[in-house]
């Protein structure tokens, strides 16, 4: 029996019907709400492509059961972080540094970095590398990503 749920996604109330309370948040965001930012990469919490913010913290939505969300939890995806008209500083820095190849991992890189900068506004390079240590990139865009985060932090 499908369960009706109300989620706060990118500042809007979203109503969804979920068959299985174990459904990971990622599937609700992508399949029910049509969002493209959070991406399916492993379903195991290993790669970081699915990262979203929940109440400002970076969370892996592929292993976050939708039933585990606290009532009123504020979910922000890459789309909600900033858009073409109003880029988030991290997004703007990724464009400036041309920090993508295929870009499949970039959602996670930006969401993880934006969460880092919320807590540590001026991280050094080693801190950035450590903060992104669990985010995988296969194209080898790492040094541009680090530079983009430094640029967003104003430490480049």
């Amino acid at each position, binding site marked *: 029996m499908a369960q009706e749920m109300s989620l706060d996604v990118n500042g809007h109330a979203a109503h969804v019907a979920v*068959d299985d309370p174990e459904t990971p948040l990622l*599937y609700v965001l992508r399949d029910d709400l049509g969002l*493209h930012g959070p991406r*399916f990469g492993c*379903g195991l919490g290993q790669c970081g492509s699915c990262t979203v913010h929940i109440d400002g913290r970076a969370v892996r939505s592929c292993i976050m059961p939708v039933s585990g969300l606290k009532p009123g939890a504020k979910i922000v995806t890459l789309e909600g972080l900033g858009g073409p008209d109003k880029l988030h500083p991290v997004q703007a820095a990724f464009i400036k540094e041309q920090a993508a*190849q295929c870009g*499949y991992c*970039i959602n996670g890189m930006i969401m993880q970095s934006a969460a880092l900068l919320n807590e540590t506004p001026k991280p050094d390079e080693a801190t950035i590398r450590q903060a992104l240590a669990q985010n995988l990139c296969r194209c*080898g865009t790492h040094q541009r990503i680090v530079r983009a985060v430094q640029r967003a932090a104003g430490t480049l």
Partner: protein
Amino acid sequence: MNAPALSRRSLLLQGGALVVGFSLSARDALAQQTFAPVATIGFSKPIATDQVDSFLALGADGRVTIFSGKVDLGTGVQTAMAQIAAEELDLPLDRVVVVQGDTALTPDQAPTYGSLSIQKGGMEIRQAAATARARLLQLASERLGVPADALLSENGVVRPRAGGQGIDYADLVKDGRLDLKVDPAVKTKDSTAFTLVGKSVARIDIPEKVTGRFTYMQDYRVPGMVHARVVRPPAIGASLESVDEASVADVPGLIKVVRQGNFLAVVTEKEWAAVKAAERLKATWSKWEGLPERDKLWQHVRATKVTKDDVTSSTGDAGAALGQAARTLEASYDFAIHTHGSIGPSCAIAEFKDGRLTCWTASQMTHALRKQLAAMTGLEPEAVRCIYIEGSGCYGRNGHEDAAGDAVLLARAVGRPVRVQWSRADEHGWDPKGPPTLIDLKAGLDEEGRVAAWSSQFHVPEGAAGNVPLVAADLAGLPHETTMSPGNIIQNSALPYAIPNVRTVCHRLASTPFRPSWIRTPGRMQNTYANEAFLDECAAAAGADPLEYRLRALKDPRGIEVLKRVAEIAKWQARPSPVRDVSGDVLRGRGISYVKYELNRTYVAGVAEIEVERGTGRVRVPRFFVVQDCGQIINPDGVRNQIDGNVIQTVSRVLMEEVMFDRGAVTSLDWASYPIITFPDVPEVVTDLIDRPSEKPWGAGEPSAAIVPSAISNALYDATGVRLRSVPFTPAKVKAALQAT
């Protein structure tokens, strides 16, 4: 700029309207970007590679649509193609739209592989655009009564050089159609007049990718679509004996359990239900243990039947010269089985409608895939349309085509459009693999330490760059290829150096443990690894500086230049390897390597700096220097991005990657069991490009990967005095090698 940079969809919408003249609706041309269903009938747009209209259409609104058979796999070639076309047509970049890899719309420019997108695909587009421009001048000349050579084109207008009113391209070609053959002799723009080519233009796709507005294959949806997951055999060759459909009867929205031969899958209304159903489905399979024992892999390779020998170079008499050498060396190198390791597992959608099949796919080879899908379904190729939608980077032939085969089989079984999303384990377990490579080398040095004789034998699977068999067709017993296609892996087995007696032979093996395919720099990477590391062994035996030793044997001025420049930027100190003191706890060294890609194009030289922890055997590569000469550069920043990627991905391959397996199947099915390099260990890549605007452009997507394994092996030797000859150079192997000394 008319359209905001972020609005690719609206750009394409306006661009799409350009092709109305081809009795093709705007909506069809838009298929790559909208959720509208796509008809597969009624196309009259030419796609033959000798027709200008196959490559481009001039729009009534002043925009030009470029139809590229080569696709952007995340490498930035879409932007580079737009630069090439805009340059040749004298248009601003934002008035060029690129449609890629749609078998109904784009010419068959061969698969996107082999570092040929710019070198071949881009030059075909350049030729077509130059032919179009020449015709536009001619048409304007007729209309204006001014000789063509007294006209110029700029910003989409042809006008007299002397001044006066010009005519828009759109006015010159009312229906957008030129009806013209590509002129192979047409004069393309002189490089001295370039305004876009050679510039680091920002990539078209990045703004959408960083804001979640981009539609990857994995995001694409069509109306009425349902979801599927495949259930692969637990052992590669196992047979499906029975399926307990009751085990998934309670999955919400279950549509069907599809079984055809050994092909098994579940189809559901919603995606998560498919994941759960695939997990829960109970099936019994026969036992199969056809893989070799992993710890005896190299004995297995050595014992595999050889079907033929490809002699890739033969100069002088290597056998006799080895016998007369003052000193001989002998070594064997091996390179493990690797996976592509795409971050996004493969995905595809297929739909049958009115006897026709449409497949949305991230395939790097939609025209070839179309033929494979036709063979698999029994449809005529004309009844099949494959439409490229960019997926996760693939670095060769990964699982994208196989996911397409799965989707087709399932769409036919359930009579609805089906989206197949592979799991992480599907991708790690079932994408085709880079085959194990084993290389035996011998060298003879003369009295002065120079290489007088060189003899090498490469043990690599047979086959060339054809189609890789589709998993679904194989499991379901449908018509499919049965040959191996590892890519043209004998390339760069011969040497770029002037050595008097050389014989290089590739023993082509009748089989290899896993379905092989090409992975970025196939063969060229493994072969260059052995050649350049063994050459370093010769240099060490001769007591020579590795750079000076190479320069002595190199006659090619462009090769000499990349080597000298990399030595300069890496502040190379001339001395023999290894370093004098190899006794510390943290050992440091540097290694050099060189390749002339396929011995006929892109030159790359590199220097690796490494650190080795004696206690743990852990190796780090803090910095890697690259100098590359790929002729004319279209987009320098794009080339740098590719070099970063080649170096970082290959450092990962060399230090940590190896497919694990038991007698039945791959066992490294996730990122924990098949780890790749992470941020703390990623090297700083320092790149210097040699641009030659008046030369032809050569490939840049792969060549710089070729030098990485040998540069690291050479640096390891330099640091420790120990030669590592088995990739990956894991801490366990390095520690054991250090302890053995």
